[in-house]
């Protein structure tokens, strides 16, 4: 009996307490969200073309992840977080479509997505020459517009793969589809973007030497 008590005491001393585990989990979640939040915001902003709406969507995704999936392993958080965010973006577009239909029914002009000015929304220059800053802003504006105009599933696949750097399997989880679908959407997205961006030929995405 004494031996058992001693073993129990040793095992308790070795294992972290409930409070310590909870604190560790909170620290890990904080670190994860801090790493992902800025890219997630830009991804959501490109998808809805509104920074305030994007901030709301990202915060909702954070809350849902913490509330529902905090006990999952850390490796699962990224695809789960983006799955929640993509669902939020899809819901946002559905609500927007309904709102626009209602506004048309009442004879009012629906909100125009093209009113969004990426240059105006961009932050202040950070020590660059004005012409260089303008060039980069214009390139980013062209990119954002082209990505926004992609079909929704292609846009999701492209942003998750290229901007967030998820692999095919992670993107499939985030999009709720098969790996094969991800590859198809992604390939089509890249093809469409190449055509659109090279059509406009902004400096930032002009073909490099040797590229056709």
């Amino acid at each position, binding site marked *: 009996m004494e031996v058992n008590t001693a073993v129990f005491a040793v095992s308790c001393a070795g294992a972290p307490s409930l409070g310590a585990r909870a604190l560790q989990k909170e620290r890990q979640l904080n670190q994860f969200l801090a790493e992902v939040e800025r890219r997630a915001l830009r991804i959501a902003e490109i998808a809805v073309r509104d920074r305030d709406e994007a901030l709301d969507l990202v915060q909702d995704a*954070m809350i849902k992840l913490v509330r529902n999936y905090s006990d999952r392993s850390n490796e699962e958080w990224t695809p789960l977080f983006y799955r929640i965010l993509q669902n939020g973006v899809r819901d946002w577009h559905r609500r927007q479509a309904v709102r626009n239909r209602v506004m048309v029914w009442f004879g009012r002009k629906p909100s125009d997505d093209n009113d969004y000015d990426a240059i105006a929304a961009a932050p202040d220059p950070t020590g660059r020459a004005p012409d260089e800053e303008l060039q980069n802003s214009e390139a980013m504006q062209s990119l954002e517009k082209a990505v926004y105009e992609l079909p929704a599933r292609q846009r999701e696949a492209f942003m998750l793969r290229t901007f967030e750097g998820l692999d095919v399997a992670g993107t499939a989880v985030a999009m709720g589809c098969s790996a094969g679908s991800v590859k198809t959407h992604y390939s089509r997205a890249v093809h469409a973007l190449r055509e659109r961006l090279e059509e406009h030929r902004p400096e930032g995405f002009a073909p490099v030497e040797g590229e056709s």
Partner: protein
Amino acid sequence: MNEQNETFETRMKEAFDESVDKLDGATLSKLNQGRHAALAQLHRPRRQWSRWMPATGAVAAILVAVVMLQTPSAIDDVAAVSTATDMEILLGEDSIEMLEELEFYSWIDIAESEGDVG
């Protein structure tokens, strides 16, 4: 073609990362607040009843299904009986006379229930 795609994607990724790096202080502050609001969810006690919601919902759904399956036949039976009774009364030889003496029968009914008759 793959190399071209990779170069193209790399340039887009760089442009995106640059736009992320240039997010202004006000936006970063809002993100920070949002993150802390989300983490505060960890300290909220989970509602115990929410654990029983799926089971309660399933039971409720089964009950509704059973009631919906049972109710039409019950209603039909009652309706059929009452319709038949109504028809018998209306087609009976005494029905017209009974309607004429309705006040009398009503008085008998009350008197019987109070024990004045019989």
